Structure formats: structure tokens, C-alpha cells
């Protein structure tokens, strides 16, 4: 049986701002559904992707209440990706850069996300079969 790949993704963009976040989540979803072992190193604004205090809101312009608006929250995507990976026999080790977290007060994260350091990125890259850096535009 072939060795299961381990991939590392490096994310930089803050949520709600860039299509790169959507594409990054799509890549993670594909790898998670394959049962790969995945590492994520989130830094700069990306440390807000799993921020636990994200909340849905109504949209008065559209006349929608909160339930009708059903605004997607990246923290839920992160939680779902971690659950999906585990259900497929894989894993996601998501490390938020601690320096970036402290700068932004983003320490409250969904379950499965841990605080890390740039040394984690080095370790991820060394252990992975490949690494994709998705920089901010």
C-alpha cells in the first residue's frame, strides 16, 4: 500500500477578504476527503480563520434575519475540515502563529487549532511530502 501523503498549506489571508481563502479551503477539503495528513500554518490575518467569536448577523439591506442570511463563517469551515479529515482516516494539524495571534488578540479558536511558532512551519515543511504557500495578494 502506498504511503499516505502529508501536505502542508501555508495561509496568510484574513477571512472575508479574498477569494484565496475559498480556494485554500477547497484545496484542504480535497486533501481531507482523500484522508491525507495535512498541516496548516496560518499567519498574519489568517490566524482569524478559526477565530471562535465569529458570529452570524442579519442583513438589513436584503431584509434577511440572521437565520435567513445564514452567513458562512470560516471558523465552521475549519471545524468541518478537521472533522472530515478525521472521518477519512487523516488528520489536520492546524497551527496559528502565536506572534500573529498576540498582535491581533485572536487567541480564542475553535477546537482542534493550536498555537504555534514559525518553528512549526519549518517542522511541517521538513516532514511533509510537499508544501504550498498561498501568499496574500
Amino acid at each position: 500500500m502506498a504511503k499516505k501523503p502529508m501536505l502542508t498549506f501555508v495561509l496568510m489571508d484574513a477571512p472575508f477578504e479574498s477569494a484565496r481563502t475559498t480556494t485554500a479551503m477547497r484545496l484542504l477539503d480535497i486533501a481531507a476527503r482523500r484522508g491525507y495528513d495535512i498541516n496548516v500554518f496560518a499567519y498574519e490575518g489568517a490566524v482569524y480563520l478559526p477565530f471562535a467569536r465569529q458570529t452570524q448577523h442579519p442583513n438589513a439591506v436584503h431584509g434577511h434575519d440572521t437565520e435567513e442570511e445564514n452567513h458562512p463563517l470560516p471558523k465552521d469551515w475549519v471545524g468541518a475540515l478537521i472533522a472530515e479529515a478525521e472521518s477519512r482516516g487523516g488528520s489536520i494539524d492546524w497551527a496559528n502563529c502565536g506572534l500573529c495571534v498576540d498582535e491581533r488578540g485572536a487567541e480564542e479558536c475553535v477546537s482542534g487549532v493550536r498555537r504555534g511558532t514559525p518553528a512549526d512551519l519549518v517542522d511541517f515543511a521538513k516532514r511533509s511530502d510537499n508544501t504550498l504557500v498561498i501568499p496574500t495578494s
Partner: protein
Amino acid sequence: MDHYVLIASRNDREARDANYCFELGAKLASKGHTVAVFMVQNGVLTACEDKPELLAARDAGVMLLADSFSLRERGISAARLNESVLSTALDFVVDRLAAGDKVIWH
């Protein structure tokens, strides 16, 4: 020789250096490397045009791919694509990552 995937996520209306992927791809291919340029997000808008950089990359042997999801998001049908470009699922990028290609996001 190495295998490269260059990810083009912007077009030249939003970023002046957006076509660098095609130029780099052509140079790498001319040196014997295997190269694919994968257009995604607004990068797929280039897939509908006859940009000199796109055509030069094609002529150098670069595989030109456009993310099928990004095309659908923008209402771009396969019929509008440059004939050198193939509509492809994002799975291609994960396939190449797992295979050990050098994947570079621009």
C-alpha cells in the same frame, strides 16, 4: 528535470504582474522542465483571451489549465476558452502536490 505547477490567481486587469506565470512557465519549459499553469479565481479570465504571454507559454509546451469551479462561478462556458486551455478540477493541484511537483502560487 523538474515538474512545476504555477498557479495564476489574478488577471492583468487587477495585477500588472499577473502574466508573469506564463512568462516563467515558458522559460522553465524551454529548459526542459514539465510545466503546467493552473488558472484559478480571476486568473481564469485570461483563459478566454489570446494574450501573447499565454500563446507563448503554449508554444513552449506549457500545459494550460483553468479551474472548472472558477469558470462556472464567472459564467464562462468551455466554448469561450482559448482552444489551448483545458477546464480542469482543482483536484489536479492536490494530485501534483502529492506527486511532489514544485507548486508555486503567484
